[in-house]
């Protein structure tokens, strides 16, 4: 983990209100799929706090890292205004990434909305090292599907795009698709809206598969100091910090 001033190399809209920001990585450690960064989107006092974003790719040769983000509120709106000459204040890599899939299982990667970034990163990593995964991506409609980002992967892995309104790919949620098309011996890796992840987790119970979930919680410090990003977990301690114990958790550990 380091704090560094990163040069922006690209920042472009890849789907309606979804952007991809590329920048030069200069932390000591190489980021793993599932890990995140925090960045300061403005320079004033409002918005104030750093914002967490999962990494969506890393190229060790060009030292270029990326995030995919949705324009939502003040901070992400400011982020859309960053240009290639600009620098951004980054802390990372933070948190624990996804584990390697168990021997013999078929990795099923399920992403919804802003959950696409970390899942894409994971898919790319798996493409090289293990059984090619199945990637399911759910969005509200086709405008929110960054096709040009997803399609290049379809040569090497199976991809299913789902839209709530059926305007692209499968009509229904990612969980709906999964229910109908779940492969044999699956192991789930998911990131997205809470209800989606809960549905995937519930399904994993039915088919007795492991399920790794990347959780979200509002963060202040991002490094384990403030106790702000707690989520409810099972076990001895009632809470775990998403920023250091997560963001990736065993679905079994989460109080859903």
């Amino acid at each position, binding site marked *: *983990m*380091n*704090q560094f001033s990163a040069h922006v190399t690209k920042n472009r809209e890849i789907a309606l209100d979804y952007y991809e920001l590329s920048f030069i990585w200069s932390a000591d450690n190489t980021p793993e799929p599932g890990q995140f960064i925090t960045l*300061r989107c403005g320079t004033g*006092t*409002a*918005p*104030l*706090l*750093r914002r967490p974003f999962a990494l969506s790719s890393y190229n060790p040769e060009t030292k270029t890292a990326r995030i995919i983000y949705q324009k939502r509120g003040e901070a992400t709106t400011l982020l859309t205004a960053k240009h290639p000459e600009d620098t951004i*204040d980054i*802390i990372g890599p933070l948190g624990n990434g996804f584990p390697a899939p168990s021997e013999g299982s078929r990795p099923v990667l399920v992403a919804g909305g802003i959950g696409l970034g970390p899942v894409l990163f994971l898919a790319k990593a798996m493409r090289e090292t293990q059984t090619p995964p199945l990637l399911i991506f759910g969005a509200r409609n086709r405008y929110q599907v960054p096709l040009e980002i997803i399609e290049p992967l379809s040569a090497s892995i199976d991809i299913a795009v789902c839209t709530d309104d059926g305007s692209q790919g499968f009509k229904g949620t990612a969980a709906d698709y999964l229910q109908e098309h779940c492969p044999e011996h699956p192991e789930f890796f998911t990131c997205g809206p809470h209800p989606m992840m809960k549905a995937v987790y519930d399904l994993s119970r039915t088919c007795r598969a492991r399920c790794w979930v990347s959780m979200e*919680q*509002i*963060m*202040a*410090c*991002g*490094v*384990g*100091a*403030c*106790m*702000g*990003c*707690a*989520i*409810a977990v099972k076990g001895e*301690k*009632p*809470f775990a910090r998403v920023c*250091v114990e997560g963001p990736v958790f065993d679905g079994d550990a989460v109080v859903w």
Partner: protein
Amino acid sequence: MSTIKLQLNIGTKTLPNPVGVASGTFGYGSEYEKLIGLEHLGGLYTKAVTLEPRPGNGIPRIIETPSGMLNSIGLANVGLDAFVRTKLPYFKTLKCPVIVNVAGSSADEYLRLVEALEEFDEVWGYEINLSCPNVKKGCLAFGSDPAQVETLTASLRSRTAKPLIIKLTPNVTSIGSIARGAEQGGADAVSCINTLLGMVIDIRKKRPVLQNMTGGLSGPAIRPVGVAAVYNVARSVKIPVIGIGGIMTASDAIEYLLAGASAVQVGTGTFVDPGIPEKILSGIETYMKEEGLADMGSFHRFIT
């Protein structure tokens, strides 16, 4: 240019410089060790320690507000025993003073905590949290009554010769009189302010965002309140005042020093940029050189 003295005496000891990091915003230090040089800190105020371990409040616990944030962490901490076992060894390795922030739900709890920590040299001193707005029972009640503050401070005083700092809440009618209670009880310093009581409501869910309903407001939004509080407190007591609240830049810190503080703590600012405490320290040095100020006391002669 004459030499500048950044040190500050608190009771029998000396803080190396006036810029510390505020309780609850810096964990136990180790969380930030990879990002900044802890040896430059003029005081590491730990997350509050309580007698028993506490899981903290329900979730969510934080929400951003205009130029600030609201938190309701509760006194989430490992409890005294685990603190001694797992945190003190780390403090031994640190070069900066570690001030343990102590919270209890009864006078007895405060006393037992200080008694138990007294033997450890790695505990530089205590900051007594009489002001946390996020627990139902205990500290807020103490913190808003000068007589109770005096009594508790006196009992604590009789149990320690280490620096004893009483942390004040702004959620009172007269913060100066609470400070006087602390001084009369024998405190070596007071620190202020803790967070302001606040609430944010989710209008679609139609309930407060924080599970605990209310929380504590911190960050730049509250800085003018903190500066006014320090100004009032510094005019009520003779012991040093440590200023806290919304400090993001050297200029912000200098406002507190001119208002009457002899040191400051950075809280929410460290979340925004962990490099802030160090930048502030060097900014204060530059300012002192530019303005010909020799020591922390020399900030106090301008505003009367």
